[in-house]
């Protein structure tokens, strides 16, 4: 027991081993963090940065799917000009920003907060239902997205779906609504699928944050005469704000470039009603074979995501630095 002694150094002599040992030790300490980071950095470089760079290079070319081996023709900003002029881009951007992202994120945050507050109530804790409640909440999240979409397609089916059968049997409707086939309802249907499948993450994140708020703070508020409503608005929500901000930003980033739900549910249809940037990118690259143009869509998405990411990092790390 005791402090490990430092290595004995020989007296310094010009060109001697002692000075060399010291500089060797310093050099090792200097490069050691980078060597330890090297495996992770290599993975990032190979699987993230290189493909992203390749995508940017492709976006400046006219190149088809069949020409990857040969290379395409350099066309400068032509793909981006065409992208901006394409009326489908505006539609896809609007759908992505409003319906796919803003709508589903708002609903998830609102519902997630309500569910988290419900799961954190005294009643649930008193009856030892927290574990069960959490497990039930997680069910949508453990369902593979493909299965979730298929199940919802059946639920929403106009003639045989459970949702329509319920609405017709209860007299709310005289005939079933083909939710996924009608322009006026298709986005609500996709929103329902996305919210159902992705809500658990928000619930669990907010619940964890709620459970980390010390009970003493609530007791102090009650002693000061605050009712439950005031406690919610003046104690709970302010304390949840940092987590809410981070969760909102994260799910915004994850949802903005989501392809799966729209593609599986509607393929961007009916017509182009549910076309989003991700499906537009897929169609241009792999159906129309315009790999360069598809890459340009990807670059556009990447630039928008960059803005969100900068906001996220500023929010998340500013908070943690502030706490430190």
């Amino acid at each position, binding site marked *: 027991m005791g402090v490990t002694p430092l290595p004995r150094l020989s007296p310094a002599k010009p060109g001697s081993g002692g000075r060399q040992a010291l500089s060797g030790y310093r050099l090792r300490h200097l490069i050691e963090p980078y060597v330890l980071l090297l495996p992770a950095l290599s993975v990032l470089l190979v699987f993230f940065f290189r493909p992203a760079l390749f995508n940017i290079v492709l976006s400046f070319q*006219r190149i088809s*799917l069949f020409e990857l081996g040969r290379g395409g023709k350099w066309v400068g900003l032509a793909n981006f000009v065409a992208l901006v002029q394409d009326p489908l881009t505006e539609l896809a951007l609007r759908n992505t920003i409003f319906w796919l992202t803003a709508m589903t994120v708002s609903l998830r945050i609102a519902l997630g907060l309500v569910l988290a507050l419900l799961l954190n109530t005294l009643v649930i804790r008193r009856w030892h239902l927290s574990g069960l409640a959490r497990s039930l909440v997680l069910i949508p999240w453990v369902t593979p997205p493909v299965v979730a979409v298929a199940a919802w397609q059946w639920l929403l089916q106009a*003639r045989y779906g459970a949702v329509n059968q319920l609405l017709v049997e209860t007299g709310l409707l005289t005939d079933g609504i083909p939710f996924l086939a009608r322009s006026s309802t298709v986005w609500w249907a996709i929103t329902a699928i996305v919210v159902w499948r992705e809500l658990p993450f928000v619930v669990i994140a907010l619940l964890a944050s709620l459970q980390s708020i010390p009970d003493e703070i609530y007791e102090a508020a009650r002693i000061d005469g605050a009712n439950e409503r005031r406690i919610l608005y003046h104690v709970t929500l302010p304390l949840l704000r940092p987590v809410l901000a981070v969760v909102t930003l994260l799910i915004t980033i994850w949802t903005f470039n989501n392809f799966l739900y729209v593609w599986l549910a509607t393929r961007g249809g009916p*017509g*182009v009603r549910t076309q989003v940037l991700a499906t537009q990118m897929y169609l241009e690259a792999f159906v129309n074979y315009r790999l360069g143009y598809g890459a340009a869509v990807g670059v556009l998405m990447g630039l928008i995501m960059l803005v969100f990411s900068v906001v996220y990092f500023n929010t998340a790390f500013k908070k943690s630095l502030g706490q430190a």
Partner: protein
Amino acid sequence: MNRARVLFCLLVPAVVLALSLSAAGSVLAAAATPPQAAAKKVELLFRQGDPPGEVEGLVKAVDAWNAAHPNIQVKFETVPWKDAQAQLVREIQAGGGPDVAQVAFVWTADLGKSGLLTDLVPFIKASPPGKGLQDFLATELGTVGDKIYGLPWTVDTATMVYRPDLLEKAGISRFPDTWEDLARAAKRLTLDTKGSGRTDQYGFCWPAGSGPDGATWFLVNAYLWSNGKSFMKQDAGGKWEVGVSPQDVAGVMRYFKSFFTEKVTPESLIAVSWEGDPEMVGSLARGTCAITNFRLATFRLAAKQSPQPIKMTLEPKGSVKRASHLGGRTLAINPNTKSPQESWEFLKYLASSETFKTYNQFPAQKALLAEVQARLPEAEKAYAEQLTYGTSFRDYIFSGANVNGMWAATNREFGAVFSGQKTIEQGGADLVKAMNALLAEGKK
């Protein structure tokens, strides 16, 4: 002793030990192997795209090959059609991919032109398949110049499929012969059979989804071709141009949209792209649809589910002729294969009568086609006749336009019209504009 020396001292013996063990293993294995089995063993990868339920017979054929050819073993792989082309293109360009691949008719020339498939001409000359190349159908679809990149393997089309009992109940004594007759008959077959105030039997159903792989494309082409039109045609000088006007397309859109506006087709089918969707396959069985449009494989699936008999019949006639698409698959060899000769031998086997004894598809060879047609049950005889009216996508392929893009644009614009996002006139104009853009892109 520093770290490097320790590592060296551990590593070298480990490497020496590993090398010794593997050498010893090889010696032992060679000693255990009888001399004749030490001959070169080839393993081929064969990839196809049809779902498992449709290829049981093909799997049997491949197993039979493996049993008879211990030195050329074939591994069977399935990649669904919707992903197949993109995956094949990526893999071949990356130096990999299957040795033998099932490729759609419409992809073969594009893949061949891009150097992604092997030219089969030397193989065909050295060891002709079947009864010779002249016996094969639609060989021009895989031919680019004097090279052949795919051997036509199977042909398929779609026919009308219906419940004879429902037509009889509605007083329709024979299946409608023209497109107008079909619309009228479908209206008579749309009924509230239970008196609930809601339609529970629809006259005509088809997957009218807007996805790039939807089935509207096939019906639209059948309608156009039967009325003497085509999306692409050559002018007198041999130059390719879009063969339909916005008014022509609007006419087709008006026809098919009328099924939705008159509620002869359920609106929910605007969200269904695939004929194999349970809503489609089960519709005849449940009696919720009286007439549909299916390929043979889907017909057989539906027939298994239906308690009442269902029948195939010819596509309606237009003002010029009767028509339907002639689709099909070719077999192609990957230029990256390390065993081209063995791949060719296996390819020839797949195209032989042996395979078609168990593989219930229609061979793209005249001699074999006659054999298969003779074995067809009564309910499927119309399919064989419909094949004679089949029109391939030859013109579209040779025009240079991307056929997949044409398919996607057609479903998209028709879907927009069906769902009310665009007027018929707008949809017609936009589709012709899209076709022109695809043609121009193909010429670049």
